[in-house]
């Protein structure tokens, strides 16, 4: 029997096989995780749909897998096998699924299902040449792979990006497949820069009170095992300011020519992981307390690092917060998480001498200082609006007690 990659969710057609959890010869029970697939920034465990023994795996770790592609063959039963009666006069006319295969020839995979656009003679030629058609970029209409695409000398053959083989060229370069999360980031960043008219606005803030408040909250949180960072406070301040400037919490529906104002505040949080940047979403920030937010952020960061985020974790964001300051730098100019229209950069907090009014005269005092940068889509948000938003936002940052007062 064959196990093919099941549907991964709406709009997700492929993923990278990160890790096999089973190997040929393993006994597998229904629902047991078979492998980890990384898609659209989430790594998903694929559970088994069968009870049986793994006969062979047909995809290597690191390879791109398309929905419906053959993943492994097994001996056993599909759990929810809709047992068709033996030809009760019915004709089966669907695309032919190769009959249950107990031991398929590994190097000979069907291109069935029409996923690769190529004529039968081209498919045969590819098999004879030992070329994996899914690795070839077609030059014909709709990306059809033409016979000529195969007949070109191997080096000049257009190759589709995902090649899971690391090839070390003689000159001392290393070619590493640009796949998985890296590829997704590349696509999303390109899209954002192509679509949104980026500009960045930077303002400084006195974070002295925030540092004090956070220290208190940290002590309280630690008793409950919650790690309280600055992020919940920043998020709360964002929400209060967004309520006054709802356009920053909108997105542009170009197709319909409409601005979509969101009456909910779901803040994406960019998190650096081993594989790259990812931005899961904290939902309904408005309705959650500082400690609740802290707990949720802690959980999200942990799951992101363990690559255990699910697709749902990425849905519904209205604005994004990026914590650029943990390493250093004055401030960054973040790239908008399109189709959102704003991304706020939170930079490092540092001690700095500033001129302040003390008892009616000016003195140089030591304050906790920071810069906030915000990148906006100028198609939607003008500079003045962005500046006003930042002014209000920083008022909340400098006077966090206002967050309690709702002022």
């Amino acid at each position, binding site marked *: 029997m064959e196990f093919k990659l099941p549907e991964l969710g709406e709009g997700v057609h492929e993923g990278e096989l990160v890790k096999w959890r089973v190997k040929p010869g393993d006994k597998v029970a229904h629902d047991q995780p078979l492998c980890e697939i990384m898609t659209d920034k989430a790594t998903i465990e694929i559970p088994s749909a069968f009870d049986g023994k793994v006969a062979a795996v047909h995809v290597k770790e690191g390879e791109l897998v398309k929905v419906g592609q053959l993943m492994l063959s097994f001996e056993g039963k599909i759990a929810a096998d809709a047992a068709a009666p033996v030809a*009760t006069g019915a004709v089966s006319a669907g695309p032919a699924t190769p*009959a*249950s295969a107990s031991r398929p020839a590994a190097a000979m995979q069907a291109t069935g299902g029409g996923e690769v656009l190529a004529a039968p003679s081209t498919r045969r030629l590819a098999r004879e040449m030992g070329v994996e058609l899914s690795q070839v970029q077609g030059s014909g209409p709709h990306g059809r792979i033409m016979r000529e695409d195969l007949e070109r000398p191997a080096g000049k053959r257009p190759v589709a990006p995902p090649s899971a083989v690391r090839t070390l060229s003689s000159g001392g370069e290393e070619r590493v497949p640009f796949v998985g999360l890296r590829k997704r980031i590349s696509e999303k960043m390109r899209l954002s820069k192509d679509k949104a008219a980026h500009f960045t606005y930077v303002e400084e803030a006195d974070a002295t009170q925030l540092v004090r408040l956070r220290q208190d909250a940290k002590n309280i949180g630690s008793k409950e095992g919650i790690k309280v960072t600055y992020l919940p406070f920043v998020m709360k301040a964002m929400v209060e300011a967004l309520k006054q400037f709802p356009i920053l919490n909108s997105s542009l529906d170009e197709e319909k020519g409409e601005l979509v104002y969101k009456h909910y505040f779901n803040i994406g949080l960019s998190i650096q992981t081993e594989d790259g940047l990812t931005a899961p979403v904290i939902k309904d920030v408005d309705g959650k307390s500082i400690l609740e937010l802290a707990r949720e952020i802690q959980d999200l960061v942990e799951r992101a690092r363990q690559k255990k985020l699910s697709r749902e974790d990425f849905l519904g964001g209205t604005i994004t917060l990026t914590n650029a300051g943990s390493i250093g730098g004055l401030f960054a100019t973040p790239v908008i998480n399109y189709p959102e229209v704003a991304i706020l950069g939170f930079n490092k907090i540092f001690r700095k001498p500033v001129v302040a009014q003390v008892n009616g005269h000016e003195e140089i005092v030591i304050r906790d200082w920071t810069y906030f940068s915000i990148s906006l889509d100028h198609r939607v948000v003008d500079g003045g609006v962005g500046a006003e938003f930042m002014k209000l936002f920083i008022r909340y940052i400098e006077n966090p007690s206002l967050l309690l007062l709702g002022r």
Partner: protein
Amino acid sequence: MTDDREQNAEVVVLGAGVAGYPCAIRLAQLGKKVIVIDRAEIGGVCLNRGCIPSKALISGGTLFHRLSHASEMGIEVNGAKLDLSKLIEWKDSVVKKLTSGVSMLLKANGCTVIQGDARFLSDKALEVATADGKLKVNFQNCVVATGSRVTALRGFEVDQKQIVDSTGALSLRKRPESMVCIGGGYIGLELGMFYAKIGTKVTVVEAMSSLLAGVDAELVQVVRKKLEKLGVEVLTDTRVLGHKKQKNGVVVTVSGKNGERNLDCDAVLVTIGRTPNSDGFGLDKAGIQVDSKGFIPVDPQRRTRVSHIFAIGDVAGQPLLAHKGTKEGLVAADAIAGKKTIYDVIAMPAVIFTDPEIATVGLTEAEAKAKGHEPKIGLFPFAANGRALSMGEPDGMVKMVADAKTGKLLGVHIVGPEASNLISEAALALEMGAYVEDLALTVHPHPTLGEVLMEAAEATLGHPIHIYQRKPRERSGASTSPATS
């Protein structure tokens, strides 16, 4: 004779049906020494007791029926008679021509044919019981192409006189006045319609809620209307309880929505399906097990668990179609010859010789949805096709299924005149990965039935010429209305 005769072959093909004989011929073409073993006739079920003879009878029945109903065209035939016995003889002559042709081809290609019952001794040898005694055949590769047989219905012992299966129904010398067909699948309907056309009062009994399970309901509806016209009574959701043989007929007791009922008839035709021939010849001695339905599990090259033994055709699993078996035979032959080949088929067409004919290939609307496509449907009625009208065959339609997002062709489903001959274009289109536009942009000659595919493609795209369509058909409302009907 002696029991110690022995022969060696590079490849033994077990079964000379439509899967086995093409496999043997291809193997011979590739230079292999081939022995073909079959316990009965060359050509298997298809040539002898299936596709070919049934189509011969159906053609005769249809001609007879049309002759008697051609007054609209000004043709009055008085006293047209059908000599069933003679029709059967003609059918037999057609079969003979084909089977002797195949025998000749096998011989010309250098294949040795042995008639006899074979059984595996091991994964290296078979024993064949021939008319001249036993014979041992050693092989390097073996291709199991033993086909399938009619599934028996408990309580109905086939005598091929009063109770017949599809084999017997092809050789009745006397036309039954009345017939009960148990099973509303394609075999039951094809033969049932044949008998209805030559004047038999036919009743079809089907346990399921619809006829022709697996076929798009809109297509089946067209055939159902024709069944009504032919005076065939169709009982769906009806189970067969038993029967009593009488002197001059059979009484079949059925139970349906309206309770129990007795159906008097001259003959009962049992067509409830087919069972793979995977038992009784020692597959286990070769180390091969079958699945729960009796099919031999195979890989994409049609190798069984024992990698030098292959299985093709009906015995290797669904769909049980002659052309699927033939394709598998060629794949297995190439694999044995060491070619890099697999069974890599996108489009597996299926044809049903009801009146009108049904032919389908690719995904149905429901299957497309289940596979995550957003299906876009294009309908075109034969009533709006000039050739169909001028043939006096306006019933039917083409239903085209495409992916709404990409416009890629997913399936084509035809009910109508010559559907069986029209479907191959759709199969080619699917195999080539065509987009609906490709079909719409290809010039189809006028006036031909083939234009319906072009027009159905145009309908899918929302702008057919010969029907008026407000907007591309949506499943909820908008309907097509033939302008010329």
